[in-house]
């Protein structure tokens, strides 16, 4: 058996290293290392609770609004505050803007360029994919960057800037919109719709959102020219539906009032989410302590700990490894096409990417509806004093999955602040029972060419989770 250390993985957000034990041409075991520790959970105690709104978005430049929204949700839970309808709508629009922009960035800039690698030179689709998706020089980046930037004018309008806004508040939003601004918002959403329909899908969004079976997807793609159709052709040829299966246990915090919260696994099907079933195991992290629920969690680095191999803790749900992300959201929510993908082949590289693209088609029309429901002149933010002591939980969905903040306050100051990010779930290390995390499971058993130092298939699996390493350890 040989051990191979892979890294750095670029085109993921942050730093990642993967150790593979290889025997008989297959991955016998994988260990995932998040090699950067910054210590946000150590920085927050002692600060004013509202200071979290400045600090936690800066955990991550790509999930910045999601971090903000989770802090807002935790503070809202602490205070017992309900935002007015405008505030709710604004929060959904700002959150969806980040999540959809992240889906777009992932597909065009992070994931697809791997199919432009020389290893695929002999494939029938190679020339097309290379011209479209090769990093930096491909035509897709030149199409997508202006479309993404114009879509993100929503942030300029509603959140001041992105990343790192402070406009999301426990009582709503600090940024009321006037009539003319709402018209601009509706216009920019239509502009983004045009980009998606022209380039990404080659069809109207509603037709994509309505695809409800593998047969329907197969019919739809016949003769279709679009980036999704090209991906599906590549996925078929490389059998990406057979690659990257993890635990097939899915967890979602629910999003936008549109996608339900819950868990899904093969035995029980969908089930409600019980936040009390979440605990973080630190047996293989460079962290002191024992398995604890996040409300009581500790973050004490222990760099020389034996048997540890990452800064990432291992969250578990009732002791089980869970996968989170767009695939999990759509499994829990019961999207028929996605459920059929998993029923047929299990969670896979193809299913993860497809779920993300489907969300672009499902959520943008909702954003158009939310924008039209905004009412200038009505209230955007409610206000209340912070309690001197108490606790709050904020569970939201980032683009890449379930994000939770657990906050406790004592004498007007933050007493403890614990964060479980999507990639903390997906790229967690082994737990006390020895169960590998979701990516570790997805890599185990893969065939590996003896002389390929950085196998493309490993990169497809890793990037299919849309990892955010800076959130992972924070």
């Amino acid at each position, binding site marked *: 058996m040989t051990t191979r250390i*892979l890294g750095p993985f*670029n085109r993921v957000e942050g730093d990642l290293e993967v150790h593979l034990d290889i025997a008989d041409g297959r991955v016998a075991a994988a260990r995932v290392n998040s090699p950067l520790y910054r210590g946000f959970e150590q920085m927050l105690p002692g600060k004013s609770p509202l*200071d979290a709104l400045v600090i936690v978005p800066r955990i991550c*430049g790509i999930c910045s609004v999601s971090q903000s929204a989770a802090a807002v949700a935790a503070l809202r839970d602490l205070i017992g505050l309900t935002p007015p309808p405008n505030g709710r709508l604004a929060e959904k629009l700002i959150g969806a803007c980040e999540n959809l922009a992240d889906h777009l960035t992932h597909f065009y800039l992070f994931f697809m360029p791997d199919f432009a690698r020389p290893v695929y030179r002999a494939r029938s689709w190679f020339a097309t994919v290379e011209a479209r998706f090769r990093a930096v020089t491909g035509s897709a980046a030149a199409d997508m960057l202006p479309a993404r930037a*114009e879509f993100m004018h929503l942030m300029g*309008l509603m959140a*001041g800037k992105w990343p790192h806004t402070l406009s999301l508040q426990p009582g709503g939003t600090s940024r009321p919109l006037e009539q003319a601004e709402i018209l601009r918002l509706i216009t920019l959403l239509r502009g983004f719709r045009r980009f998606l329909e022209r380039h990404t899908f080659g069809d109207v969004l509603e037709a994509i959102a309505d695809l409800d079976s593998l047969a329907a997807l197969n019919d739809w793609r016949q003769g279709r020219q679009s980036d999704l159709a090209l991906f599906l052709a590549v996925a078929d040829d490389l059998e990406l539906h057979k690659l990257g299966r993890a635990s097939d246990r899915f967890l979602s915090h629910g999003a936008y009032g549109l996608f339900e919260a819950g868990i899904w696994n093969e035995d029980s099907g969908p089930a409600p989410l019980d936040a009390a079933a979440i605990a973080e195991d630190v047996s293989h992290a460079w962290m002191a302590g024992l398995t604890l629920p996040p409300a009581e969690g500790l973050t004490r680095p222990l760099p020389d700990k034996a048997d540890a191999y990452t800064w990432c803790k291992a969250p578990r749900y009732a002791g089980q490894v869970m996968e989170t992300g767009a695939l999990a959201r759509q499994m829990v929510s019961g999207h028929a096409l996605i459920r059929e993908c998993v029923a047929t082949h299990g969670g896979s590289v193809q299913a993860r990417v497809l779920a993300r693209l489907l969300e672009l088609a499902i959520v943008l029309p909702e954003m158009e509806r939310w924008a039209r429901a905004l009412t200038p002149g009505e209230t955007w933010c409610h206000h209340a004093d912070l309690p001197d002591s108490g606790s709050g939980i904020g569970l939201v969905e980032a683009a890449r999955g379930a994000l939770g903040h657990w906050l406790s306050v004592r004498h007007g100051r933050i007493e403890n602040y614990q964060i479980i990010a999507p990639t903390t779930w997906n790229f967690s290390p082994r737990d006390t029972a020895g169960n590998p995390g979701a990516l570790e499971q997805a890599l185990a058993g893969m065939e590996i060419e003896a002389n390929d130092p950085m196998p493309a298939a490993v990169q497809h699996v890793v990037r299919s989770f849309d990892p955010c390493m800076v959130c992972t350890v924070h």
Partner: protein
Amino acid sequence: MTAPLNLLWLQSGGCGGCTLSLLNAEQPHVLELLDQAGIRLLWHPSLSQESGGEALDILAACAEGRERLDILCVEGAVMTGPHGTGRFHMLSGTGRPMMSWLLDLAARARHVLAVGSCAAFGGITAGGGNPAGAVGLQYDGEHVGGLLGQSFRAGDGLPVINVAGCPTHPGWVLDTLLALALERFTASDLDPLNRPRFYADHLVHHGCPRNEFYEFKASAEKASDLGCMMENLGCKGTQAHADCNTRLWNGAGSCLRGGYACVSCTEPRFEEPGHPFAETPKVAGIPIGLPTDMPKAWFVALAALSKSATPKRVRENAVADHTVVTPAVKKTGLK
């Protein structure tokens, strides 16, 4: 045709937000501007094709002087902990602290840019007691030093160029790169904290759309109010160096336009203001952070006078979330 400038971009103790912000660049977008300027991305962790060993080969070639390194951009603070070992950030695949890579690469680079306040000064990563030992490339907070030390000069004779901000505006980064490519950037283009003067010689206050409220000290009292946020909500726009309200973000935005205070994210130690971010520290009811260059006695006198002269429209709108009193319409023609 001159040879392209080789740019290497690395990320360490930060959030990646300065890169994500860079993707917001418009007319032209980032890849187009770099191409036009004759800047070649040797490697960028979010944008490049190369992964693993291919990427490490590029880094090693630069560190050993086999590949010309014209511009080194570092995003994120340098992680020196625990106990000065740098183990809080090992560059993956190398078993070596990023801190050590940065020392080697900076020594070879013709220009060195600290992209963002973390790389410049330590930034948010150095907040809250600095548990991971974060420092900037050439500053530790407001003190010169950091990883490279006071005497460090890049190949161009300049210290580290601190493109500070949290995040950086894409224009700050791209204008700096463009000026370097056009050989229009000299020591006189740096302010006393080694930030590019083209944006650091402005105050965030310049161009603030709440200026009428500021003039009359008609202050917001809570989030979503339209009034000036200096007196109560912690806004440092009259002190913070940046052109946020004339350059604008994501089309037409800025922090103040987003309805929240400037937290002075381009300044050293912004992460530890010594007071809650959204509250203005005061002594005897007067904000202790006065507008830059404003004598205190004058400020107090003018504030008292302007408060007493505040029109009803400005006073009432300041504490509302939409215009409740509209400007009077004159039917006699404007003189």
